């Protein structure tokens, strides 16, 4: 039986300031990150000491330079929140990383909490910029001008599973899953052949099968090896190919199915999948066909559609469930939804106009064009492609759908609101979040796998948290309850 699957996601948001064509995206991102009304009195550092973004899972380390900001900058660009999340500036974008979650529904609610936090920051920051200007934020991956920004998923895996095995068995799944988790996109990018609409925001930007880079020559399988956890036990699979999703159901299916597939790979249950002749080409061809009928060449000379590829994985998942009745309790529902969605996609993808982002978007675009007598080159269509992802509930087109009951929900309001304040109770995010709430200004620095305290006398005390499944409420509540100060906490841990 494999190790527990801890997951988290990072979302880079798109940013613009209305009526300010020369706006500085770094400065605006900084302003946003510093405008969230959590405890702005907190002055603590993101601990870059243990970061290794240049280590490659294939077994080497890139000899390159990696910039670490100085302390002043560090405190300005990094906010660690009491719910265990990280809200920060990454290059020129505001970025939100969820805390570590033990299951897909928790991940979903923390992602949604992140969207709310970004929106609140936007409201706060708008008070501070010249009148007539307004910050607008998008949860998407493409600016329609050749630039892309990412949505990254992170899956904790057993280190004993060879990386090559993961790559080979996961690749066809990643290439084809877009049929039920693409966010949809008007037009094409990066010199690919024109279509008016495609399934995925990210597909056109991927150029290689495997690699370390995340910004140019993007690889389907990213080889970054930075577990933020005990290196001997764990691997963190860093998946950069996914679209950011607005629909709760889409996020649920995207991450839920990936979890089940990775579980099967780790348990040595999944045999070698059908191998794609040209994965990068297949990724684009599948994205460029919203009928989901295109058949892509396989290594064995046959062709398969994306639905057929997904059906192969789904069939394995059904067998896995039958043989593992003690699997994670969220898996049966995920696999059931997966199967139903594949059936409906095969009948007619447009049946999923309440569930899957790319279908929902296409649905409103085609109905708009029909009623307004316009076409794909209508600027309003390009605007809708963008505004679907506007995070403002009163402006975002996804939220228009949600309000009219035209979007299938997985969460209730309460789930999202409490996720803005409280960390998950069943991962090390609990310890991080509760320390931040309780010991505030006695915290010197934080990383995913450590927290450092300034207890006054003597050097900074760094507590390592290399085990993502510990530091939970069950593990640490008593310790926290009997430690009134950080000094007491450290003393109580050590003894």
């Amino acid at each position, binding site marked *: 039986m494999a190790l527990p699957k801890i997951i988290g996601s990072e979302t*880079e948001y*798109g*940013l*613009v300031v*209305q009526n300010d*064509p020369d706006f500085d*995206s770094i400065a605006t991102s900084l302003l946003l990150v510093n405008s969230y009304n959590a405890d702005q009195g907190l002055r603590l550092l993101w601990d870059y000491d243990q970061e290794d973004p240049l280590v490659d899972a294939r077994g080497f380390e890139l000899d390159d330079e990696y910039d670490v900001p100085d302390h002043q900058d560090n405190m300005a660009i990094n906010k660690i929140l009491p719910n265990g999340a990280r809200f920060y500036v*990454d*290059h*020129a*974008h505001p970025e939100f990383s969820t805390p570590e979650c033990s299951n897909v529904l928790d991940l979903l609610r923390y992602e949604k909490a992140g969207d709310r936090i970004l929106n609140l920051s936007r409201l706060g920051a708008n008070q501070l910029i010249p009148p007539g200007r307004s910050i607008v934020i998008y949860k998407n*991956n493409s*600016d*329609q*001008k050749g*630039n*892309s*920004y*990412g949505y*990254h998923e992170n899956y904790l895996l057993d280190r004993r599973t060879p990386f090559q095995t993961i790559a080979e068995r996961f690749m066809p799944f990643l290439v084809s899953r877009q049929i039920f988790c693409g966010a949809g996109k008007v037009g094409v990018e990066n010199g690919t052949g024109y*279509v008016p*609409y495609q399934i995925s925001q990210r597909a056109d930007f991927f150029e290689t099968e495997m690699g370390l880079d995340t*910004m140019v020559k993007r690889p389907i399988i990213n080889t970054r090896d930075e577990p933020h956890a005990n290196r001997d036990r764990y691997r963190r699979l860093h998946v950069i190919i996914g679209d950011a999703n607005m629909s709760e159901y889409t996020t649920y299916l995207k991450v839920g199915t990936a979890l089940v597939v990775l579980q099967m790979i780790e348990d040595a249950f999944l045999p070698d999948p059908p191998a794609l002749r040209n994965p990068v080409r297949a990724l684009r061809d599948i994205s460029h*066909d*919203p*009928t989901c*009928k295109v058949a892509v060449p396989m290594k064995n000379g046959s062709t398969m559609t994306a639905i057929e590829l997904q059906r192969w994985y789904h069939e394995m998942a059904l067998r896995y469930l039958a043989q593992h009745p003690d699997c994670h309790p969220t898996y049966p529902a995920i696999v059931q939804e997966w199967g139903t969605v594949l059936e409906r996609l095969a009948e*007619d*993808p*447009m*049946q999923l*106009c309440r569930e899957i982002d790319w279908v929902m978007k*296409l*649905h*409103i675009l*085609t*109905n*708009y*064009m*029909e*009623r*307004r*007598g*316009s*076409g*794909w*080159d*209508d*600027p*309003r269509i*390009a*605007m*809708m492609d*963008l*505004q679907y992802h506007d995070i403002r509930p*009163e402006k975002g*087109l996804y939220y*228009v759908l949600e309000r*009219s009951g*035209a979007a299938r929900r997985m969460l209730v309001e309460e789930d999202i609101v409490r996720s803005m304040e409280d960390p998950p109770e069943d991962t090390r995010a609990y310890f991080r979040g509760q320390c931040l709430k309780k010991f505030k200004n006695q915290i010197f620095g934080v990383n995913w796998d450590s927290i450092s305290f300034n207890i006054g006398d003597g050097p900074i005390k760094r507590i390592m948290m290399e085990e993502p499944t510990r530091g939970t409420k069950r593990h640490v509540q008593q310790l926290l309850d009997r430690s009134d100060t950080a000094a007491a906490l450290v003393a109580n841990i050590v003894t």
Partner: protein
Amino acid sequence: MLQTQTIAARPAWAGIVTCAEGGQQQVRRTSDAQTETTTTSANNLSAKGEKLRDEMDALIDEIDEVLEENAEEFVKNYVQRGGE
């Protein structure tokens, strides 16, 4: 460079059907399989179709209300650099 002239929408792909129509066609297929199609169920279908059409009309109107003005300018100015 976005053109201001609009071209009438023509579905580029066979099989792309709007959700409402797709739903209706599904229901019709089921009814055809039955030996009798009552007048009541036929009326229900067209009433349902009308309702869906009205709902979509309202949705499209709401989209027009919230859609950024001067779409062409807005989209032209939206450029993002330095993304992962």
